[in-house]
Structures are given as structure tokens and as C-alpha cells.
């Protein structure tokens, strides 16, 4: 199994290369090769995930010898948390790519699209697998730079503008992150995450590390689109081609934003109460303001983009509550519950937000508009899009029996049990606002008018698109099963363990 780990990065890199090379010679090469690549990655990810359990696997690239017991060079770690992320990335990746098969036909230079898609996947897989800060940064740049290109893929005025903003702000964030990494290297003389933790355990100067942590919160907060670092997201996510929006909102902000934040703050830094409070507050602010902004949008994809800010805020809030409780060191079952809720919602959000962007893409594909005011009465003519988007909307708004209900329920119960009454109330309020704007989406896109003559020409989207949507919609229902304690234990427990016992990561790697 160890040998598979570098393949998560290598396979998509190679296929991006091959697509560019052979795509020119063999007609339709990329159309078959890219989905196969992603399917292979998905199978590998599920295989690794199912076999892993609570153990973790390390891989040293090039067989570099450990230097005084510490790994140097490119170092990869697969544990419960990263395996879970790998599954999400490659699952949503595969579905979005399959969807693209018919969606992307309206663009020229399909080959570039598939190659960039493989690169973004390679970058994200690299980020979640990487065990050292420098490679984490490199893979981060691989994925975000390809996402800059993909956002601009339509090469229209708005796309280019959005991509430009995204690049400038993304570049700013990367600079902050690089600065933080440099400072860490200066102080600890190592870049390996586990090793940094090890050094920090033997004492550190607090103000200096708070400074680094703030840099990292700002940098990765921007990648995760946490308010006030979110401004690029509504433009970028709404201008990208829809399957890419699904990738960006569904997994990119999680893999390069949330995942890294959580990993570094749980497993690399020692918990501090102030930082935990800051993260919780930022999450809560994003959750509330994002929802309010989404409420007044009339552009479907913009609405979904703001909703991503809000939902990510909820996830960050849940992890933040867990951090506060862990930093205090009491009430650990509640901390575990909060983290479980956060992880569960993270997984759920990838699925339903991915699906919602695919739905928006289907609408755009058939109607050539993203304006809700120009839609209406589509339920009878686009039954698949209508019913799948209904399921996704209900999921994200937290209506039973869909998955979003259960993850929100767990987060709210955790908040009440941890005596965060205000946060629990805000989570409920935001959940209601979420319901309101998703019902607005439902109403104006699919109901509101009876389908007149103008709509009769509109047909349901082709098979690859409808299949992808149906698959994710079924997943929305199926993920509710994670609410069962034993299934939850089997799927989320390894990841929760990694985060709950924050020393575990470094001690297992260093063999202490």
C-alpha cells in the first residue's frame, strides 16, 4: 500500500502531460483518458481509505535516509484525515470531470481543460498527502495556479476580471504563507510538520508563534474564503465553468484552505485559547455574513458561491469550538462531537455544493443565463435537474432526511453541550436563512411560472450531466447513514482521532 501514495500525485501529473502531448495526435484522447485517470484515482483513494483504519502510512520520496530520526526531503503521510480528504477530492473530481464530457464541448481547447483539471487534482492530492511544509506550499501553488487558469477558461471579460482578482489575492495569500513557512524554518530549523511539532513541544516563544499563526490564518483563510479574506470567491466561483465551480467550491477551498488550517493548527501548533477563539469568531462571522449576502443574490452561481462562504464558516466554527474545548482540556467528548460535526459537514458540503453547481451548470447549459429572474417553470421540462437540485437544496438547508440535517444537528448539539449558546443560536438562524435562499432558488428556477411555449423547446441535459447529478443526489441521501454511530465510527473516527489526539501525528511519524 505504501507504494500507492506517490501515485496520487504522479498519476494526474503524468496524465496532464500525456493529454497535452497525445491529445494533439489522437483525436478524442483526452475525453477517454482524463475520466479514466480520475476513476483510477478514486478507486485507489477508496481502497486506501478502507484499508487504513486508525493507522498511518509514511512514504519517503527517493528513499532519503532519516537524519537523526527525522525525515528530510519530500515526505508524504497518509492518515485518517488525509485519506478522507483524498476520497472527497477524487470523488468530486471524477464526477465533475464526467459531467464536463458534455458540458465543456461548447468551449474550444478542450485538451487544455482536461490537462488543467488533472493538474488541479494533482495539486490537491499533494497538499493533503504532504508531510512537510515546503512541498505543501508547492502543491498548493500547483493547484491554485491551475485554478486561476480554469477560472479564466471562458476568456470573456468577466472571467478574465475574476481570474485576475483571484490571482492577485491568491498571490497575496501565497506570499503570507511563504513568509510564515520561512519564519518557521528560521526558528525550528526544520520543515517537516511532525518535526516542527516536536520542536515546539520543547518550548517556544509565544508572541513569535502567534505572529506566524496569524499569517497562516490570513493566508489559508484566504484560500478557504473566510470573511474578511473572501472577496475573490464570489467572482471566481461564479465565472468558472460550472464543473470547475463545483470543484472549487466543493473541494478546492477545503483541500487547500480548511484541511491545511486544521492540520497545522491541530497537529503542528500547540493549542492556544486565543487562536482557537479567533478561528471560531472568524468562522461564525463568515457563516452569518455569507448567508446574508447569499440571500439577496439573483445570479444562481453567485448565490451558491456566497453560500459556500457561509457553509465553510459553519465548518470552521465547529472546528473552532473543538479547538477551544481542547485548549481548555475539559469536556473532551463534546470536543470530539464538535469535530465530528465539522468533518461530517465538510464531507456533506463537498457533495451537495458540488451537486448544486452542477445543477446551475445544467441550467446555464440549457438556458444560457444565470439570472434567476429569467428562469422559471422548469420543473416539468427538466425533471432530473429539478429533483436533484431540490434534494441538494434540502440537504444544504438541513431538512431531514438528507445529510445536511444530521451534520448541522451534530454541530448544534455540540455547541449547546459546550455551552456555546450564542453560536448554536446563530447556527440555527443561518440554517433558516440558508433554507430561505435555497427555496428562493427553487422557486425562481423551477416553479413560479407554468411552462409556456418558450420553455417547451428546452430539454433535459445529456446523459453524462444528468448521471453525475443523480449520482451526487443519491449520495446526499446515502451520507445520512453516517449519522448512525457505528457507520460514523468506521468512516470518521480515524480522522477524528488524528485531530483529537493532537500529538499522535508527530509521535507516530517520529516513532517516539
Amino acid at each position, binding site marked *: 500500500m505504501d507504494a500507492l501514495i506517490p501515485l496520487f500525485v504522479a498519476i494526474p501529473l503524468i496524465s496532464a502531460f500525456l493529454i497535452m502531448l497525445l491529445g494533439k495526435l489522437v483525436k478524442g484522447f483526452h475525453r477517454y483518458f482524463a475520466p479514466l485517470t480520475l476513476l483510477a484515482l478514486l478507486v485507489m483513494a477508496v481502497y486506501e481509505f478502507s484499508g487504513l483504519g486508525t493507522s498511518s502510512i509514511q512514504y519517503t520520496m527517493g528513499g532519503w535516509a532519516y537524519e537523526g530520526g527525522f525525515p528530510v526531503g519530500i515526505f508524504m503521510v497518509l492518515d485518517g484525515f488525509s485519506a478522507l480528504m483524498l476520497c472527497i477530492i477524487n470523488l468530486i473530481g471524477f464526477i465533475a470531470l464526467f459531467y464536463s464530457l458534455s458540458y465543456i464541448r461548447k468551449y474550444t481547447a478542450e485538451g487544455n481543460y482536461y490537462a488543467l483539471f488533472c493538474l488541479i487534482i494533482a495539486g490537491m492530492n499533494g497538499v493533503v498527502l504532504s508531510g512537510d511544509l515546503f512541498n505543501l506550499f508547492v502543491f498548493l501553488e500547483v493547484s491554485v495556479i491551475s485554478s486561476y487558469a480554469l477560472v479564466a477558461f471562458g476568456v470573456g471579460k468577466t472571467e478574465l476580471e475574476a481570474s485576475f482578482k483571484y490571482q492577485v489575492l491568491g498571490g497575496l495569500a501565497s506570499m503570507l504563507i511563504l513568509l510564515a513557512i520561512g519564519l518557521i524554518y528560521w526558528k525550528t530549523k526544520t520543515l517537516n510538520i511532525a518535526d516542527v511539532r516536536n520542536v515546539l513541544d520543547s518550548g517556544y516563544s509565544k508572541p513569535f508563534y502567534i505572529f506566524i499563526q496569524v499569517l497562516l490564518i490570513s493566508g489559508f483563510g484566504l484560500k478557504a474564503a473566510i470573511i474578511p479574506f473572501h*472577496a475573490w470567491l464570489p467572482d471566481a466561483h461564479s465565472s468558472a465553468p460550472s464543473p470547475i465551480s463545483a470543484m472549487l467550491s466543493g473541494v478546492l477551498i477545503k483541500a487547500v484552505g480548511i484541511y491545511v488550517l486544521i492540520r497545522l493548527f491541530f497537529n503542528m501548533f500547540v493549542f492556544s485559547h486565543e487562536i482557537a477563539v479567533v478561528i471560531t469568531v472568524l468562522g461564525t462571522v463568515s457563516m452569518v455574513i455569507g448567508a446574508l449576502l447569499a440571500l439577496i443574490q439573483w445570479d444562481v452561481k453567485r448565490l451558491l458561491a456566497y453560500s459556500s462562504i457561509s457553509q465553510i464558516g459553519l465548518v470552521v466554527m465547529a472546528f473552532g469550538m473543538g479547538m477551544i474545548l481542547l485548549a481548555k482540556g475539559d469536556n473532551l467528548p463534546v470536543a470530539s462531537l464538535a469535530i465530528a460535526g465539522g468533518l461530517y459537514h465538510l464531507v456533506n458540503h463537498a457533495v451537495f455544493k458540488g451537486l448544486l453547481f452542477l445543477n446551475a451548470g445544467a441550467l446555464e447549459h440549457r438556458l444560457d443565463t444565470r439570472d434567476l429572474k429569467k428562469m422559471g417553470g422548469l420543473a416539468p421540462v427538466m425533471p432530473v435537474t429539478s429533483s436533484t437540485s431540490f434534494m441538494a437544496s434540502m440537504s444544504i438547508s438541513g431538512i431531514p432526511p438528507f445529510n445536511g440535517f444530521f451534520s448541522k444537528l451534530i454541530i448544534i448539539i455540540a455547541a*449547546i453541550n459546550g455551552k456555546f449558546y450564542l453560536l448554536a*443560536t446563530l447556527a*440555527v438562524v443561518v440554517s433558516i436563512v440558508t433554507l430561505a435562499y435555497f427555496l428562493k432558488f427553487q*422557486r425562481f428556477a423551477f416553479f*413560479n411560472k407554468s411552462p409556456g411555449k418558450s420553455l417547451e423547446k428546452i430539454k433535459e441535459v445529456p446523459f453524462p450531466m444528468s448521471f453525475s447529478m443523480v449520482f451526487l443526489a443519491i449520495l446526499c441521501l446515502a451520507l445520512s447513514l453516517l449519522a448512525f454511530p457505528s457507520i460514523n465510527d468506521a468512516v470518521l473516527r480515524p480522522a477524528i482521532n488524528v485531530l483529537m489526539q493532537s500529538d499522535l501525528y508527530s509521535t507516530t511519524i517520529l516513532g517516539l
Partner: protein
Amino acid sequence: MTQAINIIVLPVLIGLLLFLIPAGFRFIKGIIAIGVTLITGFLAIRLFGSEDIVFSLGDWVAASGMQTPGLNAYADADKYSSFSLDGLSKLITLFISLLSLLIAVYSIMYKTAGAMRNYHAWFLITLGFSFGAVLSNNLLLFLICWGILGLTLYRLIRGNDETSSAAAKKTLIIIGASDGIMILGIAIIWRITGTLNMDEITLPTSDLVRTVAFLALLAGSFTKAGAFPFHTWVPDYAEKAPATSSAYLPASLDKLLGIYFLARITTGLFAVGEWLRFMMLTIGVITIITAVMMALVQHNYKRLLGFHAVSQVGYMILGFGLGSLIGVAAGLFHMINNAIYKGGLFLTAGAVEQQTGKEELNELGGLSRAMPLTFFAALIFALSISGIPPFNGFASKWMIYQGIIDFGQGIGIANKLWIIWLGLAVLGSALTLASFIKFIGGIFLGRQRKELSAVREASPVMWIPMLILAMGCIGFGVFATNQIIPRLFMPVTGVFEYTGIWDSSTVSLLVLVSIALGILIYLMGNLKNFRTLDSFVGGEKMQEETSFSTLEFYKSFQEFKWLAFMYRKAKDKWFDLYDLTRQFLTWLGRLFSRAHSGILHDYTLWVLAGLVILLLLLIT
């Protein structure tokens, strides 16, 4: 145990299967739905006779001797899947199944419902989860069933035009909001007691946190039942949804469930304090009066019924607010009665709508000749809801009045104000009568309009359920004190005494005798020799074009000085919690949206400002 599981699972499963049948086989779907409701009716009767029991899914699997090789998923769920069969849940189950059977029969011929995709599927799913909500003993399981009912409510309205889709949206937002608030209450209960099984929880409402938990659950119950201030979805829904959907959910099932949950939280989960009782009584009378005042001025008869569906809830809340045995029994009795006559009223409205195609009162009139059976049923329902003896509405209202008078003997502040509660409740009843004169007069009495001359009676499939419900109204009224109360409600609440003397059967007999005497006098006396003249107004013969308008009379309500002000504000939605919140949130959203200028410099500044603020906050 098996019957309780079956009654939940069977309708849901069949309902899901109905999605697979193409839309063309509407009639077959309808027949299947009737079949399922018949089976659940049978099961409900069997359950009603069975003994009280609390059991979990694991108990059931163990008892049924089922082998589940390799799959122990139920073992996880065991903690959360506790069901309870007691007097209250069995009673509600029985009435849910009876009402759904009648509505299912009616739905076959009701075209508006038939035109909806998957109407019957959602109908059956609603049925299954209603049973689930009533029979579950675990709050979480209850919440899931309860939430799904909000969803089916949303799917049972068509939403193919602007107003109906707006009503659907509003309905689900309000219901979903109440579910969210309930999660808070349930989470608090979990934190305090460590359990979610309703039979294990008794909390005093002594401190703030417990009171908040109580209020959160109360909000859920009030929203479902449609009480002030969470009622605003009911009139909109009633106006725009197919009549069967209105008869099914807001008029009967949601009332049964909402009041069922109210009964659970006020008599089981919480020991309600004095001030909360005071609040409940206040909400009760506000609900009665405001909704009936709104009903008085409606032009759309379905909307009028919708406001009454709200107003009647006030009486039930009064009953539970009293908290005495007679109060609780009266609340439950009124809930059942209301489900019968309000369900019936929506069915008559549906029949009228289908036969005439009109929804406005001033476009109708004089249908009593064309639709005699519908008229008869509607008249019985209208008399019942207005609290005219000997019908069932009177019986339960009478009990509520008695409860209030008993309550006046107490020493608390709420007790001292008993005369206010009583006076407003009676006033509400009188206003109900006034508005139903409008309903009956507007639709069935007066001159028949020319364009309505082709109207025929609805099909028997539609009027038979109505007549059965009308019989129910009479039966429950006539035999209230000697049969219905002791047999159905005393097992639930416990035995109690009435202070007033009222024997419904004797009184009914007296009413019957006096009517018979009247007829006798009419026949004996020489009263037949009267002149027959055409209707006239102010000495002038009525012309064809001067329509006899019931509505004009009610306009005067709107023109009283204070009332006029209130009505104007109500029209501007000043009292609609949903609209107020929406406006506030939209305003907030606009405020934040204005900051998003789209200028890159600003955005870069935000990032830097965020960074600097964080640094200043943390490094000092």
C-alpha cells in the same frame, strides 16, 4: 409492536414505490392510496385496542425473532428509535388514519390534486411519517419525522404560478425555521437530562435555560398547528394549495400533530410554570380573535377557511394553557372536532371549486339547489365550527368554557383574569358564526347566478366523505358527554367532573323535539297561506344585475375607525413575522453587499486590514 412498525413503514414504502409508476396511471395510484389507508385504518383500530407499551427497534427485532445476519445497523439506532403506544398516541393515530382514508377517497375525483405529479406518493409518505411522529418516543426520531412532514407539505402544493410558489416557499421556510428552533430545545434537553426519550423526561421550567427549551419546543408545536405569531403560512397555503392538500395537512394532520406535541410538552416533558401558562392563554385568545377578524374580511373562501384553521387553534391552546384535566381533555376534544369539521370544510370548498371553477365569494351564490348534499355538509360543518349545539364544536367549546370557569377558582394572576379569557373565547365563537354566515350565504344562498346555472352536484366519491365527516360532527356532538368523552378522552387524561350540568344527548333530544314541534305547528297552523314574492331591496325589486352580495355587509367591519387602521396594517403585512424578518434580513444583506464594490484595491485592503487587526488583537 409489529403493527406499530407496519403502520409507519407500509405507507412510506408504498409511497416511495408510487414514484416509479408513470404519471398517466393516476387512477391506479389513487386506488393504491385508498388501499393503503384502509390497511392503516385497520391497523390503527387494532392498535387502539392494544395495551400501552414503550419499545425500541431492538426489542421489536428480538420479539419478532427476525434473523439479521451480519447486519447490526439497528443496534446503533436502538438508542434513538424508541416508540411509545399510550392513550394519547393511539387516539391520534386512530384519527389520522380515519381522516386520511376519507381524504384519499375524495382525492380520486378531485382534479386539481390529480393534475399534480406524484400527489399520491407524497400523500402516503406524509401519512407514514405522521404516524412516525406520533408513535415515536424519542425526540430525535420525532424531529426527523416532523421535519419530513414540512417537506411533504411543500410538495403537496403545485407552485406553478407566482402566488402559489410564493406560498409554498413561505410555508417551508416557516416550518423549517420552527424545526431549527426545535433542534435548540432538544439539544438543551439532551444536555440537561442526558436522554431524549420522552417518557423519561420531566423538567420544571424553573430557570432560563429550561424555559428557553420549553419555548423552543412550543414554537415548533405552534408553527405546525398554526398559532399566532407563527400562523401566517396557513392562510396562504390554504388559498393556493389544492383543497385536498389543505384538508389533509393544515386542517387536520398538522393540527393533530401540533396539538399532540403541545400535549406532550405541556403535560409530560415540562411542568409548566404560572407565567408560561399566562403566556399560553394570552397567545390562545390573540390567536382566536385576530384570525377570526381576518377571516371576516376575506373574499377568497379558501383563504377564509385558512384563517379559521388558525383561529380554532386558539381554543386548543386555551385548553392546554389551563392545564387542568378538563382543560386538556377539552383541548384534545376540540382538536379532534376541528380536524373533522375543518377537513370537511376544505373538502366542500374543493367540491365547490371543482364544480364552479371559481374561488371568490362574490362570484358565487345560490348553489344550495345545484349542490344540495355539499350544501348540507357545509352547513353542518359551519354550525359545528361556530359552536352551535348540538354539534361537536359546541361540545368541546363548552368544555373549554367550563375549564376556564374552574380555572377562575385558582389564586394566580392568570386565574384572576378568567373572565377575560372566557369573554374573548365566546366573542371569538360569535365572530366565527358571523364569518360562516358569509361563507354559507356567499356560496350557497341568495340568488343563483346565471353563469352558474350549469353547476351540478359533485360526484358521490366526493360527497360521501363529506357526509361521513358531517355525521361525525353530529355524532361527536350528540354523544359527547355520555360516550365520546368517557370512552376516548378520559383514558388519555384521567377522570374528571364537570361543574356545569350538560348532557349532550338530552339536549340534542330537546333540540330535535323543538324542531319537530316547530314543523308540527307549521303543518297544523294555517301558515301555508302566505304570498310568494321575488326578493326585493328597500322596496325595489331586485334587478338581474344587482347582485345579492353578502360581502357588502362585512365591509362595514373594515370601516370602523380602529379596525380600519389594523386591517390596513395587516394588509401591509405589519403583523407577519415572516415578512418582517425577511425585510430586515434583506436590508442587512444589502448593507453588506454594498461593501462588495468589485474593486480589487478594496478587497486587498480587506485582507491586509484583517491581518493587521488580528495581529493587534493577539500580540499586545
